[in-house]
């Protein structure tokens, strides 16, 4: 009822949970889909907990507020704790196992544990855990093309400061790397 795909992206302030959601929505617009992005806004700061709810659909999205999400991306342990119960039965949760060692509680959802921070160290620095997670999410769901996100990144780079624009190659590398994590797992599975 919340559209074809609903996802909650959560992390601590500074990890880019909100930005990952914005990238996702922009990519949805590129592909002509309906989408909503709704953040937990306000007094959050670096270190505090932030999250956003994203809907992507082929038809109108009435509610930006999500009861149960098809997927949750938890970039730290607090996010896993907070949103594990919000995953629809049969849905999945990406957990950043670098920052969460919590036991998983459910048997009716799939868990994809990725040591995002460790893996990010292998890439050109700075690399971005939020973007790596997004790449993995997109490869897993195929809800949007990785190429659409890359297109969005290239467009954004034209409008931001030179300092930020210089990070475009790192972002492109991160999203591709995130997709590869899933691709390789599928090969070995």
């Amino acid at each position, binding site marked *: 009822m919340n559209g074809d795909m609903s996802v909650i992206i959560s992390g601590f302030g500074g990890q880019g949970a909100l930005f990952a959601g914005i990238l996702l929505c922009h990519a949805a617009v590129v592909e002509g889909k309906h989408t909503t992005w709704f953040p937990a806004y306000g007094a959050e700061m670096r270190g505090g907990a932030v999250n956003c709810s994203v809907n992507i659909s082929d038809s109108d999205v*009435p*509610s930006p507020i999500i*009861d149960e999400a098809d997927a949750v991306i938890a970039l730290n342990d607090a996010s896993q704790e907070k949103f594990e119960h919000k995953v629809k039965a049969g849905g999945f949760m990406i957990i950043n196992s670098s920052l969460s060692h919590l036991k998983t509680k459910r048997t009716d959802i799939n868990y994809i544990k990725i040591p995002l921070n460790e893996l990010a160290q292998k890439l050109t620095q700075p690399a971005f855990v939020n973007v790596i997670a997004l790449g993995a999410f997109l490869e897993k769901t195929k809800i949007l093309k990785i190429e659409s996100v890359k297109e969005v990144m290239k467009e954004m780079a034209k409008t931001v400061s030179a300092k930020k624009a210089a990070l475009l190659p790192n972002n492109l590398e991160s999203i591709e790397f995130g997709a590869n994590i899933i691709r390789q797992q599928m090969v070995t599975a």
Partner: protein
Amino acid sequence: MAKVLVKGNEAIAQAAINAGCQCYFGYPITPQSEIGEYMGEHLPEMGRVFITAESELASINMVIGAGTTGTKAMTSSSSCGIALMQEALSAMCCAEVPGVIVSVMRGGPGLGNIAPAQGDYFQALKGGGNGDYKIIVLSPSTVQEAIDLTYRAFHIALKYRNPVMLLADGVLGQMMEPAEFGEYPYKDPDVTQWALDGANNRPARNIVSLHMPEGEMEMLTNRIFKKYEEVAKNETTYEDYLLSDAKLVLTAFGSVARVAKAAVKRARDKGMKVGLFRPVTLFPFPDKDLHDTAKKANMILDLELNKGQMLLDVRSAVFGACPVEFYGRPAGGLLTPDMIYNKIAELYAKLENTTKTEAGVR
């Protein structure tokens, strides 16, 4: 023009710019600060006026100043900030000064919190200002509608020489979705017949809200209320979502209405005849249309993010045509599609039972 992904607050700000807003006066407050930030970034480079006022009192009085010259001006704030503007809103209605006020509601009363809420329906519609007056209140439910209604707000503020409020909430202000700006679609009326634009060999004009001579204030108030009748005749707007055969009719405004829509869709999938009546204009309230809807329905369920405020207008419009139930959460608690659906299912089951019992008696 293609659709762009835009945040509600920023959409309102850009729409105001497109509508020809020449002056923005405001004081930051969550959850609408992006409006001021956006205006601060764009208005000065266009040669227009942007002022961060020292308080909300100052903002709204600056709007009055600009409005008396026939200039399109706007302020924006949230709950406790809008509370400070009430005296000026009353004065604007009396002196017939146009202006646009954007209210992005947060939790209250008091300083409350910064979460989305709808506790300021009374504040907007039944106002804290003195005397007989009404401000026109428009209630967007999507980012696209926030753009469209911002355009409309600027136009009808000038058309009726009355303050117009865009009443949104934290959900709509903070969320992003694709929307299209298009061009400002209205042709605005000539203001040179009344605006304070410098006498220059014509007789002096006064725009005042003090009328001491006997009978003058009564006459003025009656004239203004004639104007409100015109507003009601021309501007009343609501959305009909699956009402034609609805036994259970939901009423909701703003962001709650779109969440309700998700619940209605689900109820329809389960075969329940449920519809949504969404007032787009809160003043003028679509009371006649709601009454006609209620006559065909078995029950109304009013949904709000407060303890029941629009509920009074709903009851007044329904006027006993069918029972009216209320379901809401105040001060930052959100209604989700599941919550609304469960309430629908509960009430619908009751309706079905009642209908069966009545049939049995017959």
